[in-house]
């Protein structure tokens, strides 16, 4: 095919002398890139005007620029169909620009050999939308060219990047109108037929799973290997949380094979919170804590159902009692909000999401009740049963990645809270004491991120000091 299409075409406007190419460029690229290729041709490429003429009489019909602001156009309809004989000045296609629909005329006589961009699809200005052959004989040649053009044509709407095979067979366009329903027994719904066409899926390769064995849109999507789009309108509205996420920034063009999966509600909420967090001036203070005593205590209370999370939450809560400013928050940038309760939110990863169940009044509950409560919350989080007050009432957040061996990390302060503690793994470390005795102790690094509008360095430092004392002398935790 490549050898058959050694030709690039010209802008419809040009009528300059011929420049021929003997090289084969299989994909008609856009102008700029063409010029760089052209020297490989035999003739001189006086390509300053970027005008090419083709020896062969196969020409491309281009997406014209119908207005100064137009960057791409949509094919409203092809007035002529493949195989029609065109004469100069005749309208061939109706193009919709950003402003209006316009008829596009051909500048040459010929035969409309192939339609590259079918009705309803868009193409950038300058892209080939159809192929014009001068004679019958060249129609086949032009079709081949069209096929290559079709494969290379930049899809202007990267819809969830459907992996279309790079080389599309030259025929499928023909299938358009009549094809799918011919087979007697196969029944496809109207939308399924549209999808078959859109994804160029052969109807015979799809197994119908709908009522009476008919092919449903989902069947086609499955066959095309794409994530089924959510069904249109289930009756009985599910009470989804309307959590707005900021509008996505204009995305860079997708790499081939990549997919776009919209955020779930939870992910959208996380995204929104993360963006919001950027408006808070935060700083971080780290602190090493020896955990041998805590570990020993943990071993003791573990059989009673106490978890490390509960221990840490309790410790943090007790420290917060002494440092109320760290439990405060700044809602408006002008004032402290002193929280009456100490509610420890704990970050939890659940399949692809992140949620922060809250241990309310963690300072007042005893360790066992706290552990019990925590179990309940985790269960609810897993089954998505958490009530809003159970995940958004936190005044201080705890995030622990220690179980993965992370030794230290940096947490992002959730909006509406004063501080978040990032807890690393507890690891045996060689430590020297004041007398110069070396010993191996388990050391854990904690790192607190705080809102500097209300919590200053010394506040955080003394808080961490208190926290470390509690952890290092954990008996008080069980009281």
């Amino acid at each position, binding site marked *: 095919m490549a050898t058959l299409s050694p030709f690039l075409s010209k802008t419809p406007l040009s009528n300059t002398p011929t420049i021929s190419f003997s090289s084969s460029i299989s994909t008609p690229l856009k102008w700029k890139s063409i010029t760089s290729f052209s020297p490989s041709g035999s003739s001189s490429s006086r390509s300053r005007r970027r005008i090419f003429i083709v020896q062969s009489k196969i020409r491309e019909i281009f997406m014209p620029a119908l207005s100064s602001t137009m960057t791409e156009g949509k094919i409203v309809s092809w007035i002529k169909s493949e195989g029609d004989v065109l004469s100069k000045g005749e309208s061939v296609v109706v193009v919709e620009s950003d402003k209006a*629909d316009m008829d596009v005329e051909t500048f040459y006589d010929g035969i409309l050999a192939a339609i590259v961009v079918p009705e309803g699809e868009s193409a950038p200005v300058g892209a080939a939308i159809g192929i014009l052959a001068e004679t019958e004989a060249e129609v086949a040649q032009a079709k081949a060219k069209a096929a290559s053009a079709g494969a290379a044509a930049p899809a202007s709407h990267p819809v969830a990047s459907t992996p279309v095979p790079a080389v599309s067979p030259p025929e499928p366009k023909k299938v358009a109108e009549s094809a799918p329903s011919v087979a007697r027994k196969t029944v496809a719904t*109207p939308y399924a037929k549209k999808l078959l066409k859109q994804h160029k899926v052969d109807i015979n390769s799809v197994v119908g799973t709908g009522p009476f064995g008919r092919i449903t849109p989902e069947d086609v999507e499955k066959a095309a290997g794409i994530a089924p789009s959510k069904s249109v309108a289930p009756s009985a509205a599910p009470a989804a949380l309307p959590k707005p996420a900021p509008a996505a920034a204009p995305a860079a063009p997708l790499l081939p094979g990549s997919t776009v999966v919209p955020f779930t509600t939870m992910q959208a909420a996380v995204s929104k919170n993360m963006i919001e967090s950027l408006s808070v001036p935060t700083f971080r203070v780290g602190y090493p804590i020896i955990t041998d005593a805590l570990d020993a205590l943990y071993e003791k209370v573990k059989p009673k159902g106490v978890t490390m999370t509960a221990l840490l939450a309790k410790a943090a809560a007790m420290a917060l009692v002494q440092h109320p400013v760290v439990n405060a928050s700044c809602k408006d940038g002008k004032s402290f909000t002193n929280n009456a309760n100490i509610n420890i939110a704990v970050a939890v990863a659940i399949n692809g999401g992140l949620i922060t169940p809250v241990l309310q009044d963690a300072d007042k509950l005893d360790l066992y009740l706290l552990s019990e409560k925590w179990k309940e919350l985790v269960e609810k989080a897993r089954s998505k049963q958490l009530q809003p007050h159970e995940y958004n009432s936190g005044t201080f957040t705890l995030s622990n990645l220690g179980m993965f061996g992370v030794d230290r990390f940096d947490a992002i302060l959730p909006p509406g809270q004063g501080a978040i503690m990032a807890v690393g793994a507890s690891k045996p470390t060689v430590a020297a004491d004041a007398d110069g005795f070396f010993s191996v102790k388990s050391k854990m690094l904690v790192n607190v991120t705080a809102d500097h509008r209300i919590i200053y360095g010394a506040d955080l430092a003394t808080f961490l000091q208190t926290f470390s004392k509690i952890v290092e002398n954990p008996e008080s935790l069980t009281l």
Partner: protein
Amino acid sequence: MHCSAAFSQAATSATAVPTISGSRHVGALHSSSSSSSCTLLIPSKPINLRFCGLRREAFGFSPSAFTRCSNSQRVQLPSRRRFKGSNVCASLGDNGIPKSFDYDLIIIGAGVGGHGAALHAVEKGLKTAIIEGDVVGGTCVNRGCVPSKALLAVSGRMRELQSEHHMKALGLQVHAAGYDRQGVADHANNLATKIRNNLTNSMKALGVDILTGVGTILGPQKVKFGTDNIVTAKDIIIATGSVPFVPKGIEVDGKTVITSDHALKLEFVPDWIAIVGSGYIGLEFSDVYTALGSEVTFIEALDQLMPGFDPEIGKLAQRVLVNPRKIDYHTGVFATKITPAKDGKPVTIELIDAKTKEPKDTLEVDAALIATGRAPFTNGLGLENINVVTQRGFVPVDERMRVTDANGNLVPHLYCIGDANGKMMLAHAASAQGISVVEQVTGRDHVLNHLSIPAACFTHPEISMVGLTEPQAREKAEKEGFEVSVAKTSFKANTKALAENEGEGLAKLIYRPDNGEILGVHIFGLHAADLIHEASNAIALGTRIQDIKFAVHAHPTLSEVLDELFKAAKVKDHASNPVSEPVAV
């Protein structure tokens, strides 16, 4: 407050007076004559005080009437009042009720047409009765326009909420729009009930007698209703309307093979529904069903979808209302046999080629909606008693809605309006015809210009039209030897449409460039149904483009689409602008 308002208006009009009177009354005018009409009202008051004296309360003039009055049409107003008075006298005198008649006017059928006629008849002082064999409101209120608008209101919102692209463009985020079928159905039903009650109450309040029972014409000026109640009236209007037309071979079970009557109850939303016929009804239902999640297959006997519309509008509408939706279609085919779903089998539809009559395809779907038009409902009306023969079921009438009998002679005192005469099967056309008839029976000749009656299809976006389509206009132009021009504007250039992010749309004006006459206007776009009236009023009143183009439209509004349309028209300079009488058809 009234006084000051009147004063300020008087002040403006006073400044206008000299120029106007100067031009009209060929000079020789000063203040005394400019106030001549007003001296009529307030004799012997000094000129500069008349403004205060002219209060609305005192004379019952609206401010606008007053403005007109002092703007040199002074004589007209009082005379118009007198004219109206004399009209009433005439109707009483000429058409005085011989004691033998129970009523001046009896209307058979209390649909929108009958209702419109009844209201106007009361206004004209006629003793009126309306006979209804079913429920007040007829098709429109109970099984047509009204409940379908409720469903379309839902579908429009669903469509909007589901269009992620649209929402995103507006900066909105909506998750999982859903609906409750029964809730939607109840909305439609409640709306119909409400409108029906409004209609009933409005007639009762005006003193129209509502006679319950099927009406049958026994002879001239004599009607039976119910089993054996006989009433007489000087004039009778038949307004019995229509029922869904179901072609032969189609078995309607009301469950899976349905007509619009059933569909409006929205008893279920099939996954896949075939709609037979792609006219107004079919299109509107395709809008509803696709918005509610169904897939739709159109079956159209003609070669293209939406055959009744202007071809260009139809094409655009197809691009927007059909192609991007979960709809496919079979054109040029008849559905010869439709069997409802039973015994675990789906609905089957046998299609034959409309031209060759050869079997073409068999469809298997979940439901089929028959929207192949409507058939007049004239059975049991007793037309044989007065020697009237229906034509395909329609009651034959002349351009004044007077019924003609088998010999082509007028049947005295008998009129037929609305779907039953088949002239223009639209609720508001029926009502207009009814009003026209009442005008006639009260002594004022009136012929309704059907070309000024707008029509609308309430899809999203809407389609509306008035007058001729482009091919019709060209055909007429050919015959009568005039030129036809077309002007178009796009909603894409309209600020309000773009603000709503609904720039898809087209308005099209078909006109005579030689005299500026509007032949037809077609609109496809946001709120098209509400926009058409500027054009239909212009046609009804005979307003020419060269005049209407100077009318001002508020900015930014959708009505500017029409403003631009009129301004885009190129009327030849020499075109004069005599306001011609509307042409009757």
